[in-house]
């Protein structure tokens, strides 16, 4: 499990978990789960295009993810946000199915792109991943205060001259960067669960944003490490463990919070 060819996997997975935990906190806070699903999922179309043209998949993913983020931002200014997200998603996936039909030897790769692959993260992918990850963290650090302001008290943010539309587009671009770097390990679909589950769990324990981010990163790390270990031993897809563990951790948190709440009610009564 810790042999040399798995080292890259552990490094890549840990980076993915950190990014997903940080970005996921804002996804849950802002209620942008649909965009956080649509951008990585739609970027799958870009990966299919990259395979067709014979270029690096990360390039194709990146172009589609950024294009999707800008497209969602552009369309939402002219209509409903969720409609814009849905249409951007289906358009990217439609292009993906077109690229897919042009290339011949792809069906097997589709599965690992969608649901992740524990084995075989090549070393030359680690450096771009680390770079994109750093860019994400940096962007979140710069956007931290306006992001919190526009999410929690939009009126105050507007009074202070923060433009919500720009912040939203900036945040979608961060989600796009984050999804681009995560593909080799968790796949385009499960990146999403890694952003939602841990962050939602963390939010039900603490309301302090920094603590919540730290907790969400920690939970994401545990889920990814556990998922890879179990997937390695059982040979089942890592996506299954990552996807279900996120929901399980949230269910546990809700149960715990409910019991604490009822105990508090009991003591006050």
């Amino acid at each position, binding site marked *: 499990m810790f042999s040399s060819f798995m080292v890259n996997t552990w490094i890549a997975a840990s980076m993915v978990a950190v990014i997903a935990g940080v970005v996921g906190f804002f996804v849950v806070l802002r209620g942008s*789960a649909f965009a956080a699903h649509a951008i990585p999922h739609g970027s799958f179309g870009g990966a299919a295009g990259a395979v067709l043209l014979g270029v690096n998949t990360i390039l194709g993913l990146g172009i589609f993810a950024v294009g999707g983020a800008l497209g969602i931002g552009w369309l939402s200014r002219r*209509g409903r946000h969720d409609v814009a997200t*849905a249409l951007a998603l289906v358009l990217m996936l439609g292009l993906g*199915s077109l690229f897919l*039909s042009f290339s011949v030897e792809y069906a097997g790769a589709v599965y690992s792109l969608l649901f992740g692959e524990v084995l075989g993260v090549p070393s030359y992918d680690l450096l771009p991943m680390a770079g994109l990850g750093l860019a994400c963290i940096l962007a979140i650090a710069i956007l931290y205060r306006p992001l919190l302001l526009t999410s929690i008290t939009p009126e105050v943010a507007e009074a202070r001259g923060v433009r919500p539309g720009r912040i939203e587009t900036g945040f979608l671009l961060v989600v796009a960067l984050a999804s681009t770097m995560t593909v080799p390990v968790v796949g385009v679909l499960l990146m999403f669960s890694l952003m939602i589950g841990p962050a939602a769990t963390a939010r039900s324990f603490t309301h302090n944003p920094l603590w919540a981010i730290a907790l969400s990163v920690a939970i994401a790390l545990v889920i990814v490490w556990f998922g890879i270990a179990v997937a390695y031993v059982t040979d*089942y*897809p890592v996506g*299954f463990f990552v*996807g279900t563990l996120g929901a399980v951790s*949230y269910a546990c948190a809700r149960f715990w919070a409910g019991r604490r709440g009822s105990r508090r009610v009991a003591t006050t009564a």
Partner: protein
Amino acid sequence: MSGLLNAIFAPGLFASAPVRAAVVVGAVVAVVTGAVGVFTVIRSQAFAGHALGEVGSAGGSLAFLSGTNPLWGYMGVAVIAAGLMEVLGVHRPRARDVATGLVLGAGLGFAALFLYLDTTSTSTTGVTVTILFGSLFTISQPMLPNIVVLSAVALVLIASCYRMLLLSSLSPELAAVRGVPVRAVAIAYLVIMAVAVSLAAETIGTILATALLVGPPATALRLTKRPGGAMVLAGLVGVAAVWIGIVLAYDSFYWPPVDHGWPVSFFVVAMVVVFYLGSGAVAALGRARRSRRAGDLGALSESGCEPHVDADAA
């Protein structure tokens, strides 16, 4: 003239059995998703609608594994997912996003597992692509009656709670005051949406299910404000998108770069997006014309000719 017709409708288009099945099923599904989708757009539940379709694919792959009819797999899992979303709090505005996301995440996890088992047990890797992307041209003929009956059921359900649904979508408080069981209506609508979406996802793929559930209704709602009219218009737009897509996909057999057709899903999605963007332009033109007229009238009223015009109404 016949040369032009032949260029648009490639020879053999109407004689092909898969095309005929696709024309019928595509139209039925487009009508149902159009009618159901108007409320999806009004209630801002596009994410839930999309999620139900994707989670349904877990049921589809499970059914494939156990050898039962995939339609029941899709539908069963989608209805269960709708219930879970409700339990997790999809009815509360602040929690709906996370509730939908968690169910979707878990559902995709199960899809990953079942698809993995499908591919290892049958050693056909193509099943992932078939289940996730689907194709209008691979509809099995014996399924036609089931599809038509289930579509009719969904339409009857949506028609029977139309008024309660409309009131509780536009103003939940007013609906509650009038004695509408808002929560029950919300659950009923989630289940209807699960039936419609899983029907669409099983027959034409999850991409098209989402596209038809959201695109044509959003297009229609930009052109008319009446929900009833929007439902009819959405159905028409959806049917048009599907049929144009089928014709183009059939024509594309003769197009480069490969000697098989381009995927029909791509064409239908492209048409849906074109209609949506086009309706935006039409609506903007209409607004501009109305405001210009209101401006003229405003000028008239200033000169004292037309004192009763309410320029704000435009």
